[in-house]
Structure formats: C-alpha cells, structure tokens
C-alpha cells in the first residue's frame, strides 16, 4: 500500500514521462491485440459473406474479381454476363438466380442494380421509407446515408460514365425511397436500384428524356446540390411511361449472378453445367475464393506477427531502459531510504510497484482500446473492406 502510494506519487509527479511510458507500453500491448481482432473479424466477415453466398455465376475470368464485385461491390469490373444466363438458371428450376449490376457509382458508393430477391436473400429491411417500387427508385445502405447525409426524399445522381461510350446518356437522378437497417456487411455501403434502373443508367433503357440542363441549374429551376453534375436525366410521373428497353432482355448485362441453389444436389448439378472451360461463363463458390484470399491475408499476417514481435521486443527493451535509467536517477532517494531505515526489499518493492502500476495503467488503456476495437470491429471491418474495395 505504501509502496503503491509512493509509486503513484512518483508517476503522477513525473506525469509526462509516465504518460510516454504508459502510452508506449499500451501501444505495444494494444497493436497486436487490435490487429488480431480486426483480422479475425475481417476473416469472419469475409468468410461469412462468402458462405452466405452459395454460388456465383459470371463471365469467365478472375474469380476474385467476380467475387469482389458481386459480394463486396468493389471497383473490379468483371466482364458482364448476359441476363439469358439468369433465365437459364430459372428454367433449370435448380435455384434462384439474383443478378447484380455493379458498374456504376454515386457519391463514391456503388450503385447495385438487382432484383427484389436480393433483399429477401440478404434479409435487408428498410429502417425508414420503403423498398424499391418504381423504375428509378434507390434504396441506400445505412453507411451511405450517414456518409452522404442523405435521407428518404433526397436524391442521388449517378456518377457520369464514359465507359460504355454511349452518346446522349446522361447521369440519372434517382429518388431515395428507403434507407436500410445496418447489417455490418458491404450492403451498408451500397446504393440499391432495380437492375432495370441500372440499365437505364447504362442507356439500354430510356424514355423521352427530361434532361436537367446547365441552364436549368443556372436559372435555379433544379434543386441541385452537386454543381459538378450539370446535366442528368430524371424519371418523372410525366415521362415514366415513355421509358422502355431496347432489344431482348436476355442480352442485357449483369456484373454477376448470385445463385441460391435449392439444395446440395441442385448445387452439384448446377456446378457441373458450367465446368466446361469453353463456356463463356463460370459458376464459382465464393466461399472458396474468399478462403483463398483469407489464407493469403493470414500468410501476410504471420509475417506481420514476426515484425510486431520484433518491434515489441525492441520497444520493451526501450521501456526497460527508460525504467532502468529512472532507477539510476533515483539512487539518491534509495540511499536516503536506506539511511532512514527502509525495510529490506523496500526499494525493490517500490520499483516493482511503480513498474506494475505503469503496466497496469498501460494494460487498462490497451484493454479499453481492444474492447473498443472489438466492439466496433464489425463496422470498422465493413468500412475497411469497403475501403479496400
């Protein structure tokens, strides 16, 4: 108790030095724990998303790109897969195909064109507003709402694209009709529209365009916040009936198709159908692709562990040196204590109390930090994964 009192007084009096020591020690303890937590949460999140997505149909090419685009809405652009592939899965009766079209973005978030089946499949429900109803409707994830400060009743404008080199296709203004409950998955960072709306953005479907021009903006007739976008189309009550699609829907593109097989047998049959490497499409199991990715991450992580260990040793040596030097500085106090009749081992106890107090405080800070990390790991990992995408 007395030793602790003296130790605490000493640490408090030399607060700057104590603070540095505590922070360094806390950091050394915190970093590996936080890394471990974030990595294992990432792994869980990644694997969970992979496992929640039984099969993925897409154009033959990088399986990772396909998975990243369809599951995490990354910027990878796998070659589009034709909607006839969706129909052929329907016709097989072996599973439910859910197309996702992730070629466009708005405000830095992916616009995900899909069907209502996606919402059932991922169990997404609106926290406010309603689901997709009419061509042009957008339902946004909770992170999108928070990041862009958008609510039901606001609008979003798709980012201009020249990817498809279609003249006369303007960005589309979409009313936000719903904000989804947070799920801590990439769905929080997505702007969902009907895949038909995505086709309108792509220029495959269009109406008698009601283009909001720069002149309108200048004249103040358009309620427009984003000055960078000067021309865009808008689906209104007056022009919605004129919207139509050209050509056969079978030829329309999707980025990938999530396939939910009815059962294991259906899954096996379906996989068998796409084995031929001559086919333009492939059917993959995202869980396997993700596991490969996770394995790679963890190989890198083991390297990181070694680096962390080396740094920890070095840092503890530095802290040890600092403590040792401070003991040397206190030789005079020790001499005084001896003269005043200090109990044998008192000095040792004093120094131990000091070191233990330091480590306890550092440990508490590290523990609080680790608790904060693990409490928020899911959302942070979601954010990190989105960042990576």
């Amino acid at each position, binding site marked *: 108790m007395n030793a602790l009192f003296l130790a605490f007084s000493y640490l408090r009096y030399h607060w700057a030095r104590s603070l540095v020591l505590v922070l360094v020690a806390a950091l050394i303890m915190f970093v590996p724990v936080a890394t471990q937590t974030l990595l294992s949460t990432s792994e869980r999140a990644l694997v969970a998303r992979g496992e929640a997505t039984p099969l993925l149909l897409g154009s033959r090419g990088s399986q990772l790109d396909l998975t990243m685009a369809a599951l995490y809405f990354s910027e990878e652009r796998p070659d589009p897969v034709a909607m006839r592939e969706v129909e052929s899965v329907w016709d097989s009766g072996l599973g439910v195909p859910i197309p996702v079209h992730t070629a466009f973005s708005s405000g830095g978030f992916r616009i995900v064109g899909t069907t209502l089946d996606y919402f059932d499949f991922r169990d997404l429900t609106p926290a406010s507003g309603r689901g997709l109803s009419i061509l042009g409707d957008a339902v946004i994830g909770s992170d999108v709402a928070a990041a862009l400060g958008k609510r039901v009743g606001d609008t979003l404008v798709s980012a201009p694209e020249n990817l498809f080199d279609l003249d006369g296709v303007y960005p589309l203004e979409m009313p936000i009709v719903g904000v989804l409950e947070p799920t801590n998955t990439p769905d929080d960072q997505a702007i969902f529209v009907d895949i038909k709306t995505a086709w309108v953005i792509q220029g495959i479907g269009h109406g008698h365009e009601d283009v909001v021009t720069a002149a309108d903006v200048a004249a103040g007739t358009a309620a427009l916040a984003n000055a960078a976008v000067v021309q865009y189309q808008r689906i209104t009550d007056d022009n919605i009936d004129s919207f139509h699609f050209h050509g056969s829907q079978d030829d329309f593109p999707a980025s990938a198709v999530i396939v939910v097989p009815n059962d294991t047998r259906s899954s096996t049959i379906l996989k068998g159908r796409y084995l031929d490497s001559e086919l333009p499409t492939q059917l993959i199991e995202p869980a396997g692709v993700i596991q490969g990715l996770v394995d790679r991450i963890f190989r890198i992580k083991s390297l990181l562990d070694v680096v962390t260990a080396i740094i920890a040793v070095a840092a503890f040596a530095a802290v040890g040196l600092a403590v040792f030097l401070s003991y040397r500085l206190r030789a005079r106090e020790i001499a005084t204590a001896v003269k005043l*009749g200090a109990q044998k081992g008192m000095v040792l106890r004093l120094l131990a109390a000091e070191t233990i107090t330091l480590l306890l405080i550092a440990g508490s800070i590290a523990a609080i930090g680790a608790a904060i990390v693990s409490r928020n790991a899911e959302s942070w990992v979601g954010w990190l994964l989105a960042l990576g995408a």
Partner: protein
Amino acid sequence: MVRVENLTFGYGADGFRLRVPEFSLDDGERVAVVGPSGSGKTTLLNLIAGILRPDDGRIDVAGTEVSGLSDAARRRFRASRIGFVFQDFALLDYLSARQNIFYPYRITPALVLDDAARDRAERLASACGIGDKLDRHPGGLSQGEQQRVAICRALVTQPKLILSDEATGNLDPDSKARILDLLFEQATEAGAAVLAVTHDHELLPRFERVLDFAQFREGATA
C-alpha cells in the same frame, strides 16, 4: 544515550581506518562533532545509526547494542529510534512537504502512520513555520524551508537521537543559526539528544559539548 567503546572501523584492507576508544552522549545532550574532511565524522554517524557495522568494539544506543543486531533489526531500530538530518536535505522532489515528512512511515513496517503521527507532523510543521506550505513540493520551497521539512521528518517519529550531518552546511549564514536553533528547540521539546557534524565553527558555542574528531583518526593518536 550513546555509548561507544573501543570502536574500530576500516574501509578495505589499507583504506581509511577509524578508531574511537570511547565516546558517550547523554540523554538530551547536544554535541557537535568537528574535524577535518575525511576524518570519519560521517562514518561515526553511520556506525551509530547502524548503517555500517564496526570491525570491533561496542556501540550502545538507548540501551540497545546496535553492533550486535541483525541487519533487519538495525533497520527497524534506525527507523524508530533515530532521526536523520542531511546536508542536502534528501527530500523527495515528487512528494509534497507533508508526504516527505511522512516518508519514514512509508518505507518501513516498524512505523505506523496513525492520527497521532499526522497530528505530530502538523504541530512540528507549524512550530517550524512551514505549516502553510505542506502541500508544496520541495521545488517550491526555499533551502531553509526544505531543511525545516527535513527536521520535521527527522522528529516526526519521536526519536531519542537526532543525527545531523552538516545540516546547516548548505544554508546562508542567517539561516544557519535559525535552523540550528529550531533543531535544538524541537529536539529539546521531544527530549532527543543531538549529535551534529558541522564545519561551522561560529555555531559551536550553541552546543553543549564539542568533539574534535582529529583525535580519533587512526595514526593521529599513534
């Protein structure tokens, strides 16, 4: 109070050697120890306090034969029976004046910091004129004030013997006399004897007796 007989002490085989055939200090007596530097004055204090063990001879303090005690017993004895005042005050900069006074209680289980001790500390501090400065750290006190704190620390445990090692050596001439008077005053109040090493010859008249140390130096008498 203190009886020293046939004391010999030496550092190493052919280093400094001290020999005290006889020395005594009565209860409440105030004795100055003078002598040239290196004559072993501080060594004598350390021997009496039990910090050092004599090679031979006998040291008896308040009826306890210090030289015969174990290390732990000597520590306990020192903490409870002896008050120390040093030339450099030996205050701890990280403790407030009050906590510096309590310091002896913090470092040994032989002493218990109870309400009586706290009251004593307050009384001593008031008597020494630092009653309103107890919350300051040594860095915020003048040298004289620091030595007053050190005197309070030496007396708070109610020792029967105060060992003062150049207690006034670092003080300006005005303060020297005042601090010494204060030390004597408080020692008298507590009924403690004072054995003080000093170089300040102008202070000697204030002591009851002066012990010139030159006579004890090995070889000096031979």
